[in-house]
């Protein structure tokens, strides 16, 4: 027999399941911290998620309308399986995200969490993920609530957004200064949006507001102008958080197709409306942040809108520059960063002025999340660009 060494290395869990600890699932991300010296960077994760449905019974208590609150609690209590869903519009397609059980962390993080002084367990899970990826600050969003713009009842939508915002600011943001959020606006009610900004705009951890992009919202309507002005005056960025919509699935038969398209098309519509109606000219100091649509759509939009604008300038008279030039002043979160063609990715980053406009985002714990090493390992970025994208741009945009 030839010479050999006895291995004394640790045994790892043979298989990662929904019960695995976040720190075990992300153990390989921890190795990137040394490899890329990530502790030398200030890393801000501009888009990550917690599971609000795990705390749904608490959130229902925050509904202000007593009749609706009673209905929600009753529904949660007596309907089978409604405990974590009452009044919500959880879309059935969302349960297809884990590719039939192949990506367990997308389905749930059912790991053991010791209760810490009555904190929601989500806070522990968020801290575990941050620690594993070397993240200093994380901007955290809900999950199914990001589909709330498709709720069939606008009054329930408004009540749920208000309840969730109250719960989140009190139970999560007030407890952990490293966790931040852009809160959703009840966009079907401009007055409700103003009330939301005024109530929550100065709460600890609130760094901006957003609309959940899956909705039929003509954001150019005059009723919304006071909302944009309020955000601009307060220096709060305005986000557009993408999501899936299975209604495009009427023409599509695979979740892959629905996800690939609908996470982008929703923001394509809003971005087109935003620019062509001259909103960047009307609110020049209002920063917009386009969240979770990836990057590959941006050079398409730049070329497409410039091309059409040059021939039909009379339909967009408020513009003083090319659409792509306005886009170069907007902000974008990086995930899911399409990186199958490095040349195209490099050109995209150049086109959008990534060095000053791009914000690293993990989207953890979703199935297509990106670790910080994905930015740190890009061969064509300068050291300054990496530093900016990983955190300094976010520090500036969100005044962290």
């Amino acid at each position, binding site marked *: *027999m*030839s*010479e*050999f*060494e*006895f*291995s004394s*290395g*640790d*045994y*790892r*869990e*043979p*298989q*990662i399941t929904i019960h695995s600890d976040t720190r075990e*699932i992300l*153990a*390989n*991300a921890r*190795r*990137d911290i040394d490899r890329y010296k990530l502790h030398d960077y200030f890393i801000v994760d501009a888009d990550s998620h917690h599971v609000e449905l795990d705390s749904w019974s608490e959130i229902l208590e925050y509904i202000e309308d007593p009749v609706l609150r009673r209905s929600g609690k009753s529904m949660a209590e007596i309907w089978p399986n409604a405990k974590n869903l009452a009044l919500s519009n959880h879309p059935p397609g969302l349960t297809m995200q884990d*590719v039939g*059980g*192949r*990506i*367990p*962390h997308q389905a749930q993080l059912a790991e053991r969490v010791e209760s810490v002084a009555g904190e929601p367990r989500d806070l522990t899970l968020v801290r575990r993920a941050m620690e594993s990826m070397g993240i200093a600050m994380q901007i955290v969003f809900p999950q199914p609530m990001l589909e709330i713009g498709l709720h069939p009842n606008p009054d329930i939508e408004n009540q749920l957004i208000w309840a969730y915002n109250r719960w989140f600011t009190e139970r999560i943001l007030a407890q952990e200064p490293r966790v931040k959020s852009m809160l959703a606006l009840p966009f079907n009610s401009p007055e409700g949006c103003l009330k939301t900004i005024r109530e929550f705009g100065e709460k600890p951890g609130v760094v901006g507001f957003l609309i959940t992009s899956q909705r039929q919202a003509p954001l150019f309507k005059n009723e919304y102008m006071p909302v944009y002005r309020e955000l601009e005056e307060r220096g709060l960025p305005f986000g557009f958080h993408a999501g899936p919509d299975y209604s495009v699935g009427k023409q599509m038969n695979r979740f892959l197709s629905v996800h690939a398209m609908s996470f982008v098309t929703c923001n394509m519509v809003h971005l087109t409306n935003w620019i062509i109606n001259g909103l960047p000219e009307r609110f020049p100091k209002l920063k917009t942040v386009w969240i979770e649509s990836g990057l590959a759509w941006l050079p398409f939009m730049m070329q497409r809108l410039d091309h059409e604008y040059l021939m039909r300038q009379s339909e967009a008279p408020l513009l003083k520059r090319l659409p792509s030039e306005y886009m170069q002043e907007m902000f974008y979160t990086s995930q899911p960063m399409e990186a199958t063609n490095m040349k195209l990715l490099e050109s995209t980053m150049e086109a959008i002025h990534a060095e000053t406009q791009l914000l690293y985002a993990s989207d953890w714990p979703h*199935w*297509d*999340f*990106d*670790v910080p*090493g*994905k930015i740190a390992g890009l061969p064509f970025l300068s050291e300054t660009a990496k530093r900016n994208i990983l955190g300094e741009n976010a520090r500036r945009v969100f005044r962290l």
Partner: protein
Amino acid sequence: MKHLIAKSGDIAEGGRIVRDVAATTVGVFRVAGQLYAYENTCPHQGGPVCQGLLIPRVEEKLNAARGAEGFRFDETDPRLVCPWHGFEFSLTTGCHPGSAEIRLTAFEVTEEGGMVYVGV
């Protein structure tokens, strides 16, 4: 260097062990009587690929008119699916089915005298 990583009995048919060896982590699998060893680092973003689901390849059957007749499992082609984002690798070749360039790092694995060794 050759490392004694496990006793043969530790890796049953259809089973695996995942263990730190030298400066890395290795997964050793026994499928259809054959041992396979790969580094537990996915070529995509470095995820723990050897800790993923083992599941047969999914194939789509077409009929004579090239119409789709649905999905089924091909039990002859076991796939290892990285739990981070779902990249899928043929266990026998270590390659991603969509691109042979996207492949796992394989290690030599031998079994002698009731012991399993990997060359790392």
